[in-house]
Each structure stands twice: as structure tokens, then as C-alpha cells.
């Protein structure tokens, strides 16, 4: 393993994040605060409790997931798309590094940034609502796994994208609906039976459910199934990336 290379990519990518640290933090904090005001205060005053938890607290895990998933994808997809766009990818391709090292550097940095933002949103949430985290280690575990797996997916999108429009397309058309319909703001059990069944085909449901379990000890689906779903998703992404580098698809002529 060329660990020096992994570290170099990671540090280089993090530097991009720190250059724009203000935007990186202000925007998610602001949007989360808005969610709390709109969903927590306005709508929450009419919904008393969901599964024994106040509505304001109930949406916290979902809101964190929403931001973390979006951030992981956008950071990672931009991180690898940008060198492709400006041509600096030649250096990666000619360096003595394999696909795993490139992925660890880029995805590691993208996941770290998303994790930072997740933690900041969690801190912001404490300002608005009272809640406890019942399984803090599981909570951190879920958060980290989510950051990594969606950063992997973002990496694939970044390599696939041929222009900036395509870079936005997948997050906008696929990820945002999946996250919104994944139980960020409600419990799946609140849906009519048909939609409950359909929801089980949405991978994000398992993530949010597992994450919410780590906060409140109750979940829409079993915790084992949640872990299995996220592990499966991560493996799938890794397999796709391995194939990309093996065939040189969209990166090496």
C-alpha cells in the first residue's frame, strides 16, 4: 500500500474543504435550523408524539441523515469530477497508486467532511429540542458507515458524469426523493399499508430507521436488517469502483 499517497490525496482534498469552511458550515446549519422551525415548531405543535418521542426530537436523526447523505454524495462526486474536468487527473493515472488508494483518499476526505457537518447539525439540534442518544456508539457507527457508503456512491457519480448538469442530476432526481420518502420526517408505520410495502424497497429507509434506533431505541425495521442493507450497499459501490478502474471506464482511454 502506498499510504503516503492516500494521505496526500486526503490532505489535499481536506484543504479544499477548509478553504471554503464558512460556506461548508453555514449552509447546512441554516437549512437545518429552518427545518426545525418549519417541521419542529409549526407542524410539530400539531403532531404531539411519534412512537413515544416528541416530533421535534423524532426528526433529528432524519435531518442529520438528509444532510449527511447529500453532503457525502456532493463532496465525493465533485472531488473526483473536478480533476477530470480540469485535467489534473493525468497525475493520478500516472502515479504509482492503485484504485483502492485513490478511493481511500477521495472517499475518506468526502466522508470526513460529511461527518463534520453531521456532527454540527447534531449540535445545532440540541439548541432546538431536548433528546438523549440511547446508543451513542451505534449512532457514531451508523453515521460513519453512511458517510462512507454514500461518498462511494458520489465517487461513482463523479466518474460517470460528463458535465456539471449530470453531476447534479442523480442527487436531485434519485437521492433527494429517496431520502425524503425514506422516513426522515415520519415513521413508515404512519403510511397506508401499500406505501409501507413500497418503502421497503427504498434503501434509505433502512439507514434512517437504524440511525433513529440508536437515538430512541425504536425502529421501523430490525437493526440487523439495517446493518445488512448498509453493508450490502457499500460492497456494491466498491465492486462498481473496482470495475471502473479495471476497465478504465470514463477515466482512461
Amino acid at each position, binding site marked *: 500500500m502506498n499510504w503516503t499517497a492516500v494521505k496526500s490525496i486526503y490532505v489535499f482534498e481536506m*484543504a479544499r474543504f477548509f478553504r471554503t469552511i464558512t460556506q461548508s458550515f453555514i449552509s447546512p446549519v441554516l437549512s437545518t435550523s429552518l427545518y426545525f422551525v418549519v417541521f419542529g415548531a409549526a407542524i410539530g405543535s400539531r403532531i404531539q408524539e411519534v412512537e413515544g418521542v416528541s416530533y421535534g426530537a423524532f426528526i433529528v436523526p432524519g435531518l442529520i441523515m438528509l444532510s449527511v447523505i447529500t453532503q457525502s454524495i456532493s463532496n465525493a462526486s465533485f472531488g473526483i469530477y473536478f480533476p477530470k474536468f480540469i485535467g*489534473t487527473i*493525468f*497525475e493520478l493515472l500516472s502515479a*504509482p*497508486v492503485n484504485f483502492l488508494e485513490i478511493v481511500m483518499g477521495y472517499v475518506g476526505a468526502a466522508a470526513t467532511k460529511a461527518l463534520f457537518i453531521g456532527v454540527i447539525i447534531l449540535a445545532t439540534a440540541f439548541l432546538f429540542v431536548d433528546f438523549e442518544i440511547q446508543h451513542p456508539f451505534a449512532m457514531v457507527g451508523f453515521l460513519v458507515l453512511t458517510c462512507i457508503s454514500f461518498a462511494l456512491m458520489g465517487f461513482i457519480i463523479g466518474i460517470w458524469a460528463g458535465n456539471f448538469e449530470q453531476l447534479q442530476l442523480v442527487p436531485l432526481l434519485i437521492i433527494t426523493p429517496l431520502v425524503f420518502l425514506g422516513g426522515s420526517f415520519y415513521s413508515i408505520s404512519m403510511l397506508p399499508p401499500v406505501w409501507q410495502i413500497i418503502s421497503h424497497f427504498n434503501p434509505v429507509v433502512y439507514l434512517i430507521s437504524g440511525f433513529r434506533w440508536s437515538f430512541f431505541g425504536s425502529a421501523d425495521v430490525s437493526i440487523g436488517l439495517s446493518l445488512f442493507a448498509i453493508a450490502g450497499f457499500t460492497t456494491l459501490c466498491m465492486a462498481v469502483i473496482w470495475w471502473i478502474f479495471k476497465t478504465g471506464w470514463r477515466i482512461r482511454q
Partner: protein
Amino acid sequence: MPLIVDVVALRKAYAGGFEALKGVDLQIEEGEILALLGPNGAGKTTLISTVCGITTATSGSVKVGGHDTVKDFRAARSMIGLVPQEINLEPFEKVQNTVKFSRGLFGKSANPALIEKILRQLSLWDKRDSQIRELSGGMKRRVLIAKALSHEPRVLFLDEPTAGVDVELRRDMWEIVAELKRDGVTIILTTHYIEEAEAIADRIGVIAQGEILLVEEKSKLMARMGKKELEVQLSEPILEIPASLASDTLRLKGDGSALIYSYDTKSERTGITKLLADVAAAGLVLRDVVTRQSSLEDIFVDLVHEGDAP
């Protein structure tokens, strides 16, 4: 000298079917400077990209320092530095960070003293904390050179390093090339400029339409170039050279309309006076006299145009 780059039967066909390299064989010796000359689209950049791992070969093999560039890519690539033709740089990054990044990417541990030396040598030290987008075009090219040198390559590819570059950078670059050569680094540069090849290369290769047409010691090419020809055009064609004029350096033009005398411009006596006196003595009447010098450019153009023939 041992071989350091060994390209064997290298072919590259792009997805559209365009064959950029048609079975290239090229052996480069350790420590030499090889200039690859060729017109646009000859395959120079494709050849370099394939050696460096940016494009994959359709068939054939490349070894660098004895390591296959596909099977043993780590060992092969860690020996190679590349200065690409296009200015590809992260615009918002600082100069020294991007140079340090290159070193790390090649698996070398940090070496601030070396980075400082390279940046000073390239007159970039004062700009080390500037963002790349603030630099001029020539400065950006210096950054590309610094990045390639940062990981101490044993084989350095310079793809059109002096295209659109001012005199100062060209001179700095030649100095760096000379220093690298002293350290035993092998250098392969592509260029359109024949004077550049003449100035720094040990050997010169000519590539056109995906094929290497010639690789020869520069001194041998220069020797050919040092010769000059004098064409003595006659008012009446003759069948053969009169016995009184016969010598190795004189031949008759195909149609007998002129005598062609070749001589060395650098020698003390060119023998022209004697030749002309002898021609007059032999009773031949002159119509005109023309001299011409075959330059590397002529050799190059001839070779490239032979390649055009169907």
C-alpha cells in the same frame, strides 16, 4: 549503457478506430536525452501517455527500468516524471501545496529542502504561497515542471515543454535538463522545434503518423547537416564527368544538366575556386551556380513526407 525504456511493438487504437500508434519500437538508454520530433497528430503525446499509464495500449509492451508498465505499474511509474503539454493545474491550490502533493502521490516522504531547491531553481519560491490561478502561463508551466521533479524521477518526459514559453523559461529549462542529465536522469522530450532538439538532445527520433521513422545520434545527423552542396548548372548537358574533374566529391546530376559538388563548410579550403577553374579549363560553359545546405529540417520534412506516400 543499459536500456531504461523499452517499447516493443506498441499499438494504440482509440475507441473511434483511429490508430494513433502503429507498432512503435523504441529503445532508450539510461542517462540520454532523446528528442522526439514530429508534426501535430504524429502520436508523440499518445506514446508518452501510454508509457506513463494515462492511456492503455491496444497491444505491445512497455518496460521502464525493467518493470512492465502494466503488470508492475508501481515500480515502473514511481521512476517516471511527466510534464504534460496541457497546463492542467488546480486553480485554487497554492503552488507549494500542489508540488508537495505530487511528491506524496508518488509515495515519497516529505522533503521540504528538496521542494525549496526545485522551487528556487524554477524561480517559483517567491510565489510558493500564491494560488495557481494568479500565475501567468509561463509560471504555470514552471509549476508543472516542479511537480514532475518533486518526486525525483529517473525518467522524465517533457511533452512540448517550450511551446508558448518565453526565452527565460526556455533557458532555465535547458539548465535544469543539463543538471538532471548530470545526475543520470533520462530525458525524453517532444518538440516541434528542431533547434531545441539540436541544442539539447543526444539522439533524435522522428515520428509521424504513429510510426517511428528514424532514431539517430544527433552528431551523425549534424554531420549530414554540416555538408553543403554546390550545383554547377551547365548550358549544355554532358554524358559523363570529364576525366580531369573526376573526384569522390563530384557527381553528375541525373539528366546531365549539372555537376553537384559536396563540401564541408567548416573546413579551411572548400575547393570551390579550384573546381570552377577546372570546370572552365575542361571547356564547360556555366549557366548558373546554386548552393544549398541540407538541414535537420530537410531530413525531417523528407522523412515525414515519405510517410505521406500511399
